[in-house]
């Protein structure tokens, strides 16, 4: 059902965990639908210095979370914003049709975390 790449990210997810006092946090999904993703950001000079995730969800949800963190680590916030759900799915070598909604979640969680960062900046800045 899943490609090798998806299975690799499921079995060896990159950047699992939390960041203490993160610069930005994004959480999307809900338990009713069975997918919750949380992304934690550490930002330095407008760059994503560190990123971690926690995910409650299916194999695709875990793999896309892992992939999105890999895709954006070290990137500028501008670059990270351009990452779309499609990018994540493509980077994983595609996802089964009925799983495409999971990949939506990963990019959404990232964008939510970036928004959170900007909001915090405004408050403190």
């Amino acid at each position: 059902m899943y490609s090798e790449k998806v299975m690799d990210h499921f079995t060896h997810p990159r950047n699992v965990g939390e960041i203490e006092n993160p610069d930005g946090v994004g959480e999307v999904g809900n338990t009713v639908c069975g997918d919750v993703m949380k992304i934690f950001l550490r930002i330095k000079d407008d760059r994503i210095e560190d990123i971690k995730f926690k995910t409650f969800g299916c194999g695709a949800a875990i793999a896309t979370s892992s992939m999105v963190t890999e895709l954006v680590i070290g990137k500028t916030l501008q670059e990270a914003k351009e990452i779309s759900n499609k990018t994540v799915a493509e980077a994983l070598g595609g996802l089964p049709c009925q799983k495409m909604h999971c990949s939506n979640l990963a990019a959404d969680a990232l964008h939510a975390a970036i928004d959170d960062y900007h909001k915090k900046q405004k408050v403190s800045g």
Partner: protein
Amino acid sequence: MRRVYLDHAATTAVHPEVLQTMLPYLQDQFGNPSSIYSWGREAKAAIENARAQVAVLINADPSEIIFTGSGTEADNFALSGVTDALDQRGAHIITSKIEHHAILHTAEALERKGYKVTYLPVNTEGLVNPETLKEAFTEGTVLVSIMFANNEIGTIEPIAELAQITKEHGALFHTDAVQAVGNLPIDVKQLDIDLLSLSGHKIYGPKGVGALYVRRGTRIKPLLHGGAQERKLRAGTENVPGIVGLGKAAELARLELAERQTHLTELREYLIDGVLSSIDHVRLNGHRSLRLPGNTNFSFEYIEGESLLLSLDLAGIAASSGSACTSGSLEPSHVLMAIGLPHEVAHGSLRLTIGRENTKEDIDYLLSVLPNIVKRLRSMSPLAPKGGLSHVQ
């Protein structure tokens, strides 16, 4: 890697003796049972033998068994066939909230055609309360359909009582016994059942064949129209090898019933004890004792079922879940919802169903890998309490 199959409620392997019985009908004895020449007569005789084998398993008369292409077809046939025969649009049927989709979706299709349907609730253990059935009858109730035992949580319903109440209200009683047949003793006469569905591939028989028991004298119309097969109640050239296989599977189920029950119940208790004692924040879904011998169903808090299945698969273990992700819909199992589980707990459910080939070593293997899988997934979960969970090891 060790491979352990623990999904016998989904499907079972064809019993080697069943396959042996089928083979001649996939080879030389390929005749059409409707034909009068020798090839046809051999096939016809084989079908009638199988019919008797299925009948005796549930204490029916052979003439009361109609072969179908699946358990699903038997369920569809029962509901549409009875309502069609009574031909009262606007009539009322009663079923439960935890039926298999083969019943629920057929009931919904009947609703679209103008029938009224009551879906009885169940308690937290999955039991239909006979009192709620009593209250559900209306003037126009023609049929009650309650499953014998649930395919997800294994709960065995009080069929004798439900059938009795139905009879008192002058309606027909159907039971989807796809999961129960071969796992529990069933006597349609004693239980006073009018219609009963069963399926080959759940009892070590072949896929693509099922049967509907229809008590003599019950009015029913065909679902499949065409030739005069199965006393004009189910058209289509008979699946002779499939039917012969189902017959043999029924015979073996009858002969080995007591033995299978003991074996499965023993392993089930061993599995349940093992899981509950080694993993925290887990609940057993379904009824503790009114339960199919081979069924276990757990909810592991904070984790999602599909990732659990994937991880088990990587360890060579086949299991199943009520998670939305595995059903192709976005909703978790309607059964787990009906017994009142919160969404996230329903999403984290795991069904392990034991079969005749399983051994204590299989369960030991499962118990050796499951705790770590649960631990790993919980460590990734945003829902788990900070600082982790205490794992009893």
